């Protein structure tokens, strides 16, 4: 058993609490199961709260940004001058709508498809760290897993399009399939570049390697990671079918694309999935290229040292300093991701939609070769540096040294905590 049930601290805490209250031995299976379930549900609730709330915010943001770009105000009525309750109001309205299934539709698949898409995009948050150590599943192959999980979303969309029994929906689904299968390749290769530099698939490790100043961020590691970031962001935009790659919806041609026949709650769920996917890819971009939860100015370490040692007595194994630093880190990461999402929204309302052949051409003829070249160049970069300057980086300590120092400190830290917990 492992990181799938990763709410260890909370689970441990609950187990100990129950054990101390009911005098049941701490290693009893029933107790452990109860504690695990309680912790899991707690975490799930928190995650849903957070990641359910974010799409709501994004939908509002999109409306406001679109309004500003189109020289109008956007929502203004619900919730004061900024209309910040508009999304909630819409949601309530949509839930009230009748759940229509067309006569020609394949009812079972038609009903299941939105869930499949939403589950896939929300499952990605499982392995996404929000701050140092704040991760649901600390999987060793987290980066790989998140790519796999996000690619599941397209399945739901294709099924939805096919089962609608409508040619608009079918066209949208087919476009989406072609687009997704193509864009996954350059996206994975671009993601591989920072992964290769870090030498790990673990988001935790990758994030820690970029601690310190912003010059440690992987986007500034070498010229090719810098380019790879933009390449990745383009392909990521396409993989979440945002404009100008939103061929699956294409209102001007296909009515509403794959969700033409959907209404009410199932329709809104598609939007939740889309916006949470946007956040997921943006967060991944932030972690892989933009330093993750590190602000790049050293504020988190200042916070950590400021509150270090405080509050150790309240809960066993609890450190206020690292907790505050983690909270700050979570804010930083979400801010970065939101900025990237804002860029996606901005692009959507400023660029016209491409044709499907242009989309495929962009991917197969340009992005794939470019990403392959960047990957190759990023591999050769440290070798070139070693040959010319006898060191793998231009300035500062080598990545391996950084990783090693982190490993030792964190392992000491962990063993201390473990010792304290015992």
């Amino acid at each position, binding site marked *: 058993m492992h990181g*799938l049930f990763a709410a260890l601290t909370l689970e441990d805490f609950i187990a100990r609490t129950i054990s101390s209250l009911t005098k049941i031995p701490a290693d009893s299976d029933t107790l452990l199961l109860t504690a695990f379930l309680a912790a899991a549900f707690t975490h799930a609730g928190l995650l849903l709260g957070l990641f359910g709330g974010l799409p709501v915010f994004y939908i509002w943001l999109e409306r406001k940004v679109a309004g500003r770009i189109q020289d109008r105000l956007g929502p203004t009525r619900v919730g004061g001058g900024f209309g910040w309750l508009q999304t909630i109001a819409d949601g309530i309205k949509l839930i009230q709508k009748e759940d229509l299934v067309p006569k020609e539709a394949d009812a079972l698949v038609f009903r299941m498809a939105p869930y499949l898409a939403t589950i896939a995009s929300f499952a990605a948050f499982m392995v996404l760290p929000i701050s140092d150590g704040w991760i649901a599943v600390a*999987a*060793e192959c987290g980066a790989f897993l998140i790519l*796999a*999980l996000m690619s599941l979303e397209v*399945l739901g969309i294709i099924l939805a399009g096919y089962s609608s029994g409508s040619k608009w929906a079918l066209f949208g689904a087919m476009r989406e399939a072609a687009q997704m299968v193509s864009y996954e390749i350059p996206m994975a290769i671009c993601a591989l570049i920072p992964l290769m530099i870090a030498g790990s698939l673990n988001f935790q*490790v990758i994030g820690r390697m970029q601690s310190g100043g912003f010059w440690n961020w992987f986007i500034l590691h070498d010229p090719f990671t810098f380019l790879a970031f933009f390449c990745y962001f383009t392909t990521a935009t396409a993989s979440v079918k945002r404009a100008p790659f939103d061929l699956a919806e294409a209102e001007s041609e296909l009515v509403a694309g794959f969700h033409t026949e959907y209404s009410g709650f199932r329709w809104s769920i598609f939007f939740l999935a889309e916006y949470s996917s946007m956040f997921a890819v943006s967060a991944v971009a932030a972690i892989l290229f933009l330093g993750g939860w590190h602000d790049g100015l050293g504020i988190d370490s200042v916070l950590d040292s400021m509150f270090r040692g405080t509050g150790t007595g309240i809960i066993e194994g609890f450190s206020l300093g690292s907790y505050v630093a983690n909270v700050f880190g979570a804010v930083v990461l979400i801010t970065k991701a939101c900025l990237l999402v804002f860029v996606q929204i901005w692009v959507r309302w400023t660029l016209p939609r491409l044709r499907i052949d242009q989309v495929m051409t962009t991917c197969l003829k340009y992005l794939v070769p470019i990403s392959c070249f960047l990957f190759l160049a990023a591999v050769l970069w440290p070798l070139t540096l070693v040959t010319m300057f006898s060191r793998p980086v231009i300035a500062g300590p080598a990545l391996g040294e950084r990783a090693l120092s982190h490993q030792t400190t964190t392992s000491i830290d962990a063993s201390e905590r473990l010792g304290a917990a015992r």
Partner: protein
Amino acid sequence: MIEQLLFYTFAILTCGGAVAVVATQNVVRMAFWLVVSLGSVAALFFLLHADFLGAAQLLIYVGGTVVLLVFGVMLTASGPYTTIKTSPAEGIIGGAVGLMLLMVLVSSIGSVDWGAISGRLPASPESPFTADSIREAHAEESLVNAGSTKAKTDLAAVQQQGRTVRQLGLSFLGLRPDRNLKEGGANGLAPGYFLPFEIVSVHLLVVLIGAAYLARAKRRAVSEDRVSLD
């Protein structure tokens, strides 16, 4: 307990999905059930401490199934939801043979004492699976460097925890840090899978080219006739 619960959940999903694939006649529904079944297999892989394998299963089979879906839709698109039905007799015969095959397999599985067989295998570092070991391994949420001189128990714990990416990668490079043939010997590592890995790489390239060649656009005989009539 938890593991059992999860196992049975996903086992039922797997088997049910597979049976549904057999039972369904509609290609798209078959694909849907296939996704359910294969996704559950991925979950079973996670349960079997094979994280990387599970992720790979998700990525590759989902991608593969998407393509299957597209093809299924394209090639049966002569009418809405057309199905190529299997005759009931065939279904019955197939079911009967399948049941017999299942009985054969199940009886075979049941008649083998795996523990004895496992004992005859070469010894490898293995520690009993306990909650403590999980807890230890999880607490040590650190980068595990397979090349470092960790204790055997650490390796075992890593394997228990499912963090097998590094070891798989090393075994593809020809190194097997999990199987020391000689204690403490630097050169006593068991041989890895370097050559098969290379062969598979080349094989994939060949398949890529071959599939592209086979599926290249060809003018159909019908359309040619039409052109000639014009």
